[in-house]
């Protein structure tokens, strides 16, 4: 295989992976972020707006979804993808199971980041007459911001792994490329190139995430 062709293949797959990552990150945050905030806010132990029953239910839901093996969740969610985007194969269709699989993970990460916020500070905000919404928006989120950035970074890195798997069952991208060429057609150089790009992506995202988080912390 010529170098140019290899570049072309890898380039195209990288584009697909990036698209998958971007969409699934946005969608999983859209689903998981509010869920994480709700988990934290309803927690009786934190006492912002304690709702023991709702908290229990949400925790169960998140735990159940989290304990599902991703590949099985994907297969179960194919019909949903077909219903939502009209097809169950292709890069965009893969985003549906990816986002749903990652959402409970995001929820937990967000919840953990928010739990780190000093309880005394939350209590002070409440004593000053903050509404629950003000506590979330003006206290919890800004105070937890560096931890949230770290958590989101971790989410994206996890999604790279997930998207590689998703690619293998019809989503395209680097994972798909590595398996089709490297495994099924015995083209180790393609597989090596795909893996290399994945590694670089992980490194790059981790680097940017750490830098951002540190930058927010250093301003305090």
């Amino acid at each position, binding site marked *: 295989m010529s170098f140019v062709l290899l570049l072309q293949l890898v380039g195209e797959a990288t584009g697909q992976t990036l698209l998958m990552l971007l969409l699934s990150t946005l969608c999983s945050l859209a689903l998981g972020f509010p869920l994480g905030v709700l988990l934290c806010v309803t927690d009786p132990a934190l006492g912002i707006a304690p709702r023991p029953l709702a908290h229990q239910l949400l925790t169960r839901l998140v735990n159940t979804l989290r304990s599902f093996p991703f590949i099985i969740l994907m297969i179960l969610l194919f019909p949903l993808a077909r219903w939502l985007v009209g097809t169950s194969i292709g890069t965009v269709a893969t985003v549906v199971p990816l986002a749903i699989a990652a959402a409970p993970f995001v929820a937990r990460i967000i919840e953990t980041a928010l739990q780190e916020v*000093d309880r005394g500070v939350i209590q002070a905000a409440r*004593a000053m*007459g903050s509404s629950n919404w003000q506590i979330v928006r*003006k206290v919890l989120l800004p105070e937890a911001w560096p931890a949230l950035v770290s958590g989101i970074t971790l989410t994206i890195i996890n999604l790279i792994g997930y998207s590689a798997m998703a690619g293998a069952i019809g989503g395209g991208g680097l994972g798909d490329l590595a398996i089709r060429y490297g495994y099924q057609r015995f083209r180790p150089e393609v597989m090596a190139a795909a893996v290399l790009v994945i590694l670089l992506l992980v490194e790059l995202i981790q680097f940017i995430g750490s830098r951002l988080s540190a930058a927010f912390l250093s301003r305090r």
Partner: protein
Amino acid sequence: MRITLKNLSRTYSPPQQTRIQAVRAVSLDIPSGSIYGIIGKSGAGKSTLLRLLSLLEKPDAGALYYAEQRVDDLPPRELIARRRRNGLIFQNFCLFASRTARENIAYPLEICGRSRGAIQERTAELLELVGLAGRGDAPISALSGGQKQRVAIARALANEPAILFCDEATSALDPQTTRDILDLIRRIKQKMQLTVVLITHQMEVVRDICEYVAVLDNGSIVETGRVQDIFVRPQAQITRDFLAHLTAGPAAPRAGSFVRWSAEGGQYTLRFVGAQTGEPLMSELVRRYPVSFNIRAGGIQYLPEQDIGTLVTDLTGEPEAVAQAIEFLRNSGVIVEESV
């Protein structure tokens, strides 16, 4: 604003643990414009009581009044509005790490929906008031403990509260900074006509700033009164313990390391009020009666209105002589307490 507590109680029932009666039927009358101290040991229920007073928690029983209005059963909307007119400061400051000093002070104004211009003006005023003009843009982590508490005070005052609640506000500070912060509280109390409720475990703080004090023990009030009177005639044992601690100070010998002259003779706490502080009463005592005394600890407390001298001593001699000596002291106006 006058604060009245009628039989306030608060019980915690943590799951799988025994119930804790943190506050038991506490009744107090906190006069408007006063600095009212609530003193108690760790776990006495001080913070819980303050959470009830500042409307952070609802009591299980009893009633709470601000001026003449009952406030412990307000509906949510009014509760939030009411909280916005209270100021609160804490031992560990509880400032927002994500905000600068000025932005911290701006918070209570923001949640009330004040305009940008008004916030700018008010925060500048408050920074000036607490002596932090020029440090407004500092991140919280760059400030010293005393400066942090000043920011916290400014934040508490932003919405011109009628009441300032302080939960161990000086416990994390060194003695000099403690004095500075207490001075600041006294100054702003005058200026803004605040009622200050101050919780502490340090008698020094009560002595230096409070007009009234309530002693809390195991969730109940065991003694209340003007600080002046409590210092001169403490009734409850726990109050005496607080005063003894104050008298002894960290440098004085502890009671256990003391060598008695004889097995007989009790241990007495003598309190000299006002002018007596300067009289040679003890020399007079040994000249008149065949007794000896040994000083365990002593000191003078400078209260706003008069000084109180305290001497913890042993009197030894024939029981009759000791009794006469004590009689003499009492007749001279000294308050003699026999320690158990």
